[in-house]
């Protein structure tokens, strides 16, 4: 096996993707906390990681789990999404008004599938791995999610 690259390279290459997925999954206000939890968990597990293949998928899977933890802690109530952050961020990306807000109203599985597909650019097989379901089921969640979004945003 190739030896593990310095953890910093994972941040340099994938931090933006992870943040994108989390903003889709839990909203802008809570993405920062989940981001920290995701990378601390990754850092904890990193020395024992057995494969260097698909480090991005590995990180996005952890991010997805942290998003689920977050929803559990909030009792799975519908969450206010896309709240403006309390402190100014130095991030130039404007929030994608409306779209991610609508993503936030989807049921958890559909929402995760949409976030991983379009926030994280993951293929169906990896979405399935992250969600712990079959690729067909992942495709279905994504399809249902997109259908609802189209209806919402019309």
């Amino acid at each position: 096996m190739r030896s593990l690259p310095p953890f910093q390279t994972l941040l340099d290459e994938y931090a933006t993707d992870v943040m994108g997925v989390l903003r889709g999954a839990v909203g802008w206000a809570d993405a920062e906390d989940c981001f920290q939890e995701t990378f601390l968990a990754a850092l904890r597990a990193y020395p024992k990681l057995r494969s260097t293949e698909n480090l991005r998928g590995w990180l996005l899977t952890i991010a997805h789990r942290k998003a689920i933890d977050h929803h559990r802690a909030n009792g799975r109530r519908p969450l206010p999404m896309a709240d403006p952050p309390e402190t100014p961020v130095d991030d130039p990306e404007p929030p994608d008004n409306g779209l991610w807000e609508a993503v936030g109203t989807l049921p958890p599985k559909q929402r995760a599938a949409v976030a991983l597909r379009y926030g994280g650019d993951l293929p169906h097989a990896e979405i399935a791995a992250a969600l712990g379901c079959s690729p067909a089921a992942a495709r279905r969640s994504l399809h249902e999610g997109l259908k609802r979004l189209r209806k919402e945003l019309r």
Partner: protein
Amino acid sequence: MKNSLQRLAERADAEGLLDVAYANLDSPFGPLLLAATPRGLVRVNLPNYDPEETLAELAAKVSPRVLEAPARLEEARRELDLYFAGKLTEFELPIDWQLTHGFRGKVQRAIGRIPYGQTRTYAEMARSAGNERAVRAAGTACGSNPIPIVVPCHRVLRSGGGLGGYGGGLPMKEALLELEGVL
């Protein structure tokens, strides 16, 4: 994103997950990369070596938990800045010797004790490491010093008075000796 990454480095440090912290330093010779473990400075990468390779080496030999975390290298940066300005003659920052082993390690620790503005020969270094016949090995030990400048291998010269070699290139060795008033 910059704030998030900084917060992450701080939290990783607080939770004992920051095994190797690194930072860049602009020196008169070009960019230096400094790396430290919780024990102390473990590696200085001179400008003519690829920092990416050095980070990969640290990940393999020390720990893959390598993060850019300048806060952990503030003291090293401060002392090196003063040294390059000619205002510091003795480094006080703690050193982590884990990348040095065996006879080489003994030579490198002995190099660490050569005072500012003085020089030694490779033969003298071999002797102070306990094997006066191992002059060539002493030379190799100087060449493989993981913490150049702070562990001043530039103060080791050839017996005849020749400069010998230097990982950072001979002009840098000359300039450091000039800075210390030797040349």
